[in-house]
C-alpha cells in the first residue's frame, strides 16, 4: 500500500479515538445504575403497573392533559376499577410527594428536563 507506514498508524489512532467512550467505559468499570426512587410510604399500588408507568408515564400525562383540558373529561378508571382524577398535581403528586427523589432522580440522571414545574406547583416533599 502506498504510504502504509503513515496510513496504518493513523487509522489505528483514529479508531482508538472514536471508540474511546466504549472501551473507557469497559475499563473504568462504571456501570449505569438505575436511580433509587423514594416511593410513597402510605400507598401500596400505582394507578397502572409500575413497569408500564416507567415506560409510558409521559404518554399518559400527555393523554390526560388533552382529555382534561380539551375534552372536559375528569376521571380516569384504573384497571382495578378505582377512579382517579386526571391531575398531575392532585393525583400523581399527592402520593409521590417528594419530587426531588422521585421525578428528578431519573430525569436528572437521563438529562431530561421537562418544563411541567414551571406552571404546576411541586409538592413540598417529605422533608
Amino acid at each position: 500500500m502506498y504510504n502504509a507506514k503513515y496510513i496504518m498508524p493513523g487509522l489505528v489512532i483514529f479508531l482508538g479515538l472514536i471508540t474511546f467512550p466504549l472501551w473507557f467505559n469497559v475499563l473504568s468499570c462504571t456501570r449505569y445504575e438505575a436511580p433509587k426512587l423514594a416511593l410513597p410510604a402510605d400507598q401500596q399500588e400505582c394507578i397502572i403497573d409500575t413497569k408500564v408507568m416507567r415506560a409510558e408515564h409521559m404518554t399518559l400525562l400527555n393523554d390526560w392533559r388533552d382529555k382534561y383540558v380539551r375534552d372536559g373529561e375528569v376521571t380516569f378508571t384504573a384497571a382495578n376499577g378505582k377512579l382517579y382524577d386526571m391531575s398531575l398535581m392532585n393525583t400523581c403528586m399527592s402520593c409521590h410527594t417528594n419530587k426531588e427523589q422521585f421525578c428528578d432522580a431519573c430525569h436528572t440522571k437521563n438529562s431530561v428536563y421537562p418544563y411541567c414545574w414551571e406552571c404546576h406547583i411541586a409538592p413540598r416533599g417529605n422533608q
Partner: protein
Amino acid sequence: MSKTRRDFLKLAGACACTVAASQLVGANAQAADAGHGGHAPAVAQPANQHDNALHGTHWGMVIDTKRFTDPLLVQKCMDACHLTHNVPKIDGPQELKWIWAASYLETFTEHNHYLPESVEQRSFMLLCNHCENPPCVRVCPTKATFKRAWDGIVQMDMHRCIGCRFCMAACPYGARSFNFNNPRPYLDETKMNPDYPTRMRGVVEKCTFCVERLAQGLMPACVEASDGAILFGDLDDPHSSVRKALASKFTVRRKVSLGTEPSVYYII
C-alpha cells in the same frame, strides 16, 4: 363507436352540472353546521365525569350591579378568583386580571350617558364574557383558546398558547392578560393554591368560568364569594336561576352591537 363533438359537449356539460350540484349541497350542509342562533346544536356531555359535576349546555352569568355598592364585596370577589387561580398581583401595564371592577362609562361604552348618579358611580364586575361567537377563538392560530362545544365555555389551553396575543387584540372586552414575566415571584408562596397551576412567561390567560370547580360540583369562586350578587347557571334551561333573573329584571350586556353575544348579563 365514434364520438362527435356534439356528444362530447353534452357529456362535459352534464359532468359540470353534477360537480356544481354536489358542491352546492356540501356548502349548504356546512352553512347549516356553522349556523348559530343562540342555541348551539346539542353536543354530548363529556364522558368520565364526577357524579356531582354541574352540567349545562350554555353557562352564563347574571351580575346584580345594584348589590355591588360595597367596595369590600368587589374586592372579595376579585380575591376569591385570584387566590384560587394563583393570579399574581402586578401593578401597572403588565397587570394580570381575571375579574376586575370598572366604572359605568368604561363598562357600557355604547349605552346612554347622563344616567342617575347612583348608576354611573356603581362598580361593575368585569370578566371574560364567554361569548357565543368569540373573536378570540377565531383568531387564535394554534387553537389554544377554544369554545367547549358542550357547555359554551371559552377555555384556554395554556400548554398550547404561543403568546402571539392575537386574542388580546381581538377581544373587545380586554378580558385577556399576557404574562410578561414569570408570575411566581409576584405570588405569595404561603397563599398559593397548590391545587391549581400558575402560568409561565409568554402565555395569555383569562377567566375560565372555573371549569375545574364545575367538574367538582362547585360554583365558580366569584359566585360563591359574592353573597348572591352574581348568579351562575345554564342559559339554555328556562328554570335556571339566571333565566329567572333575566325574565324578571332589566339587563344589559356589553358591546352587543359587535355581535360577539356575551354570556354575561348585568342587572342595572
